[in-house]
């Protein structure tokens, strides 16, 4: 064998030694399989209603204002679904991103966020200014934003809004326009400083609310990314000649933040006391967060998608008034992929794709990496997961995507949770070619625990590659079919109406805690034709986004059997004879659900 070849083989072996982290390089050339996918094998499962919806909004990352190629530009924005006015229709909040200003274009400035009120029938109205979201407290302009989290932090029964971004977060309390006249509607009040979350944030990405200590008040977890700044803004190239956005390995991970909700309208930063890891060169770099009870002990645990370093699984050991967590990512099997590589992880969700009654954890990763489905085989006190990606057929989609926002979503209401993923490259010129930057979404259909790629059935939205980032899923029109709202970088937001599962039955459940207590960590089990379907109440999930917290059970042609709800405090309630094809509001302790 020629020496050259021998050397190259050694080089190739070395490549396998290294973790497949973000070094650039896509594999996104369309191939035959992809082309075939574009031809739908069945009717479209979504209808793109953006044009008629009244939503005309684009998240901007600032690359049109300066050619810095900063890592700040790579993250994009999310989507928040929030029924802010209590009319039963989910409204849509959209972070606006930002840009660069000043003489040297190094002033990082924000662009306005938007709130679109759901008018019904697929129509939305921009109410940003009317509800006070056009500016921050004191008339200050928006900062450079990324994500959104929704939660009723003050337990007044009205969902509040937290917006993340570069240099800080903003917490908005949902208040009546006129306390004496409820009919005058709702507005938002910037309570960031008052609530004590105005300090210590350098670069916040995703956030999630959940009651972590069992006092009913949602506490707050905020992911932070890396310690990039203009002082730490190296030049990076992936092909030896083209300047591009630097990978996260060039920076140290920032410590994430955990805020304990005092119950009196404020939060206390308890990150250190609670046991959160401190960040550093090979730690943190957080992009996504999901809160769900993984080991069935009733306490919601925190799962964090970190970029190019180990993911975190913080096992909840808290007691009332005292947040305590133990990081068990590695030992429980969710920190890395099946080869022991830390991945460039972005989006995440929890679901029950194999119907085992425990929440499996799902993570979207960078290109050249498999997305990860971690099958949950935890026992109380011993969380443990198996890497299921190959076994359930997800590996067949390949590793050419840079996956971001994602969600379990039963697109055809057959009771098996499918997977929706949006994609788009993080760098500007993947292997020197901007054409490889935009990517198509992926829809994986769950056929009794085995996933099949049916992306072509997404409908017309599938046809155009985009720079996808945040995704929020929810039932915008309350028809039981889940709709999808997608944020892209520098391209308009898309609204897709779910049209799958026609003639199939479904059951919707909204779990309400006693006295508006937070119910993240609760679960509902529905018996259907001898099978048990489990759905979990989650905090956070996807990427920088917040979706519908109601639970949907696809029933196929069946009717619902007994519904068993396990509340975070461990109490259990059973409900029989629930009518199909509608939502039921179930309040903890109440004997009967409300319509």
């Amino acid at each position, binding site marked *: 064998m*020629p*020496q*050259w*070849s*021998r*050397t*190259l*083989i*050694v*080089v*190739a*072996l*070395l*490549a*396998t*030694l*290294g*973790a*497949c982290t973000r*070094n*650039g*390089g*896509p*594999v*996104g*050339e369309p*191939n*035959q*399989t992809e082309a075939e996918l574009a031809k739908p094998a069945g009717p479209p499962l979504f209808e793109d209603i953006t044009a008629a919806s009244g939503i005309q909004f684009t998240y901007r990352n600032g690359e049109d204002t300066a050619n810095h190629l900063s890592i700040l530009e790579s993250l994009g924005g999310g989507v928040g679904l929030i029924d802010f006015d209590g009319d039963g229709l989910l409204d849509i909040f959209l972070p606006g991103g930002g840009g660069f200003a000043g003489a040297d274009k190094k002033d990082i400035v924000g662009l306005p966020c938007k709130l679109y009120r759901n008018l019904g029938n697929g129509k939305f109205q921009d109410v940003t200014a009317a509800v006070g979201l056009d500016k921050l407290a004191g008339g200050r302009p928006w900062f450079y934003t990324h994500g959104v989290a929704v939660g009723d932090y003050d337990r007044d029964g009205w969902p509040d809004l937290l917006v993340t971004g570069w240099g800080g977060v903003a917490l908005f309390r949902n208040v009546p326009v006129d306390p004496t006249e409820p009919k005058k509607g709702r507005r938002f009040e910037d309570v960031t400083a008052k609530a004590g979350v105005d300090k210590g944030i350098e670069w916040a990405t995703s956030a999630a609310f959940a009651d972590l200590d069992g006092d009913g008040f949602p506490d707050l977890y905020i992911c932070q990314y890396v310690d990039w700044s203009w002082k730490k803004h190296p030049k990076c190239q*992936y*092909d*030896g000649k083209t300047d591009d956005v630097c990978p996260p390995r060039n920076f140290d991970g920032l410590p994430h933040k955990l805020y304990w909700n005092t119950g009196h309208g404020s939060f206390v930063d308890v990150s250190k006391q609670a046991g959160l890891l401190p960040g550093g060169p*090979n730690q943190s770099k957080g992009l996504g967060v999901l809160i769900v009870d993984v080991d069935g002990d009733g306490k919601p645990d925190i799962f964090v998608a970190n970029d190019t370093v180990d993911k975190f699984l913080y096992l909840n050991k808290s007691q009332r008034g005292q947040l305590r967590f133990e990081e068990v990512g*590695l*030992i429980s*099997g969710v920190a*890395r992929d*099946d*080869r*022991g590589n830390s991945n460039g992880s972005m989006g995440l969700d929890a679901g029950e794709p194999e119907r085992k009654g425990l929440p499996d954890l799902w993570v979207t990763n960078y290109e*050249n990496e*498999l997305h990860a489905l971690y099958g949950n*085989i935890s026992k109380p006190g011993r969380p*443990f997961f*198996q*890497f*299921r990606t*190959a*076994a*359930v*057929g997800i*590996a*067949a989609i*390949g*590793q*050419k995507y840079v996956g971001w926002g994602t969600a379990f979503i039963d697109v055809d209401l057959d009771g098996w949770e499918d997977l929706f993923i949006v994609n788009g490259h993080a760098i500007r010129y*993947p*292997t020197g070619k901007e054409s*490889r930057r935009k990517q198509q979404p992926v829809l994986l259909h769950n056929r009794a625990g*085995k996933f099949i790629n049916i992306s072509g059935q997404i409908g017309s939205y599938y046809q155009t590659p985009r720079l996808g980032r945040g995704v929020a899923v929810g039932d915008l029109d309350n028809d039981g079919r889940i709709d999808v709202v997608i944020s892209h970088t520098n391209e308009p937001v898309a609204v897709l109406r779910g049209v799958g599962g026609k003639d199939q039955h479904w059951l919707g459940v909204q779990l309400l805690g006693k006295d508006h207590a937070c119910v993240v960590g609760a679960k509902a089990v529905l018996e259907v034709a001898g099978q048990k379907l489990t759905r979990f109440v989650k905090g956070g999930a996807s990427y920088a986004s917040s979706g519908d917290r109601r639970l949907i059970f696809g029933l196929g042609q069946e009717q619902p059997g007994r519904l068993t709800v396990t509340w975070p405090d461990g109490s259990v309630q059973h409900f029989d004879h629930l009518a199909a094809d509608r939502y039921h509001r179930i309040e903890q302790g109440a004997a009967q659900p409300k319509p």
Partner: protein
Amino acid sequence: MMGRAFQWVRSRRVTVSLVAAAVLAAAGFTGWRHWTGRLLREGEEALAGREFAKARELLARYLSHRPGDADARLLAARAARRMRDFDEALEQLRRCLEDGGSAEAIDIEYQLLKLQRGDDAPVPQLRKRAAWDDALALVVLETLIQYDIDTYRLHQALRDLGAYLERRPDDLQALLGRGFVWERFLYFADALGDYRQAVAAHPNSERARLRLADTLLIVGTPEEALIHYRWLAERWAGRIEVRLGLAQCYRRLGDAGRAQELLDQILGEAPDNGAVLWERGQLALDAQRAAEAEPWLRKAVEALPYDRRVSYSFYRCLLELGRDDEAAAVNARVARLDADVRRLGEVRREVMNRPEDAALRCEGGLLFLRNGEREIGIRWLRLALRFDPTCEAARRALDDAGVSLPP
């Protein structure tokens, strides 16, 4: 009368014999020329096809008959150099010079020899020569590419491979070479582009097909990889890497049954193959049979002790079996391998920017050696010594590795 007649007959016999002998001699000479010419041609072809041992043997046979052919001497020197037989290459060059070979060609070949022996002083001159538009420039470029790769100047290797392929767009070795370098940067789209081109231009090349299939599997397109592995299986039915590739495709595509059948078959023939053992263990983990996976993975770790991925699978398996103490010990090993991999990655990136930094070369060499990569480790340590002859750590490590060094 009789005597005259006899004399006449005898003289004619002599003439005929002489003529016949001359004809025979001419035919023999022509045949000899033709035969030696064929040896030379075949030697040249083997050299062009990078079959250096074959080229060397054919050229040696040719030169035993035509020892004064200076051009052939040069080719023999080149073949010997490419086989790293530098003494033989030097001897052939010396005789080429004696036989009146082209001074420029001999000089270039000598510079190439020096470079291949580790003296990079001729690099600037050779780079200039490589820019010419002739056959010798391609020879120069090939050696420069080798040098780029040996010294981990991978960006330069890409540029040189690009220049080579501009002139010989379908060259199999260059396409495979550039694909490999793309892979090193994790630019799999570009690697796939080169491998696809290699397969298109050389549809019967098993090597090209195997690289394409392997890379398709690496990037996670098992459906397409399967097509190529199947093609290979028809030609290389016994090759383990082909059958392993097939099994990996089946596993990725969710066909665990076929994957298991193949893997069990291979393990029947090669029970200690680490890669196959690892795949078999992972398949058992997929099937949620950790107890079954444990012996496969334990043996895989024994076979591939430096592969952190294998150790990690074993760690996961032990945890799943509840053998936490043993798992912790395996994880400690994984952590050490991880730390080395991480540092090695940093060193490699820095070396691309500072290829002559002796300290980096030394550190990288030690890390390679510690992780079972003896060949490249020794090369890096030698480079460290070349850039800094006082580098004691490199000298000591080479000594420990049993590598003799000039005083």
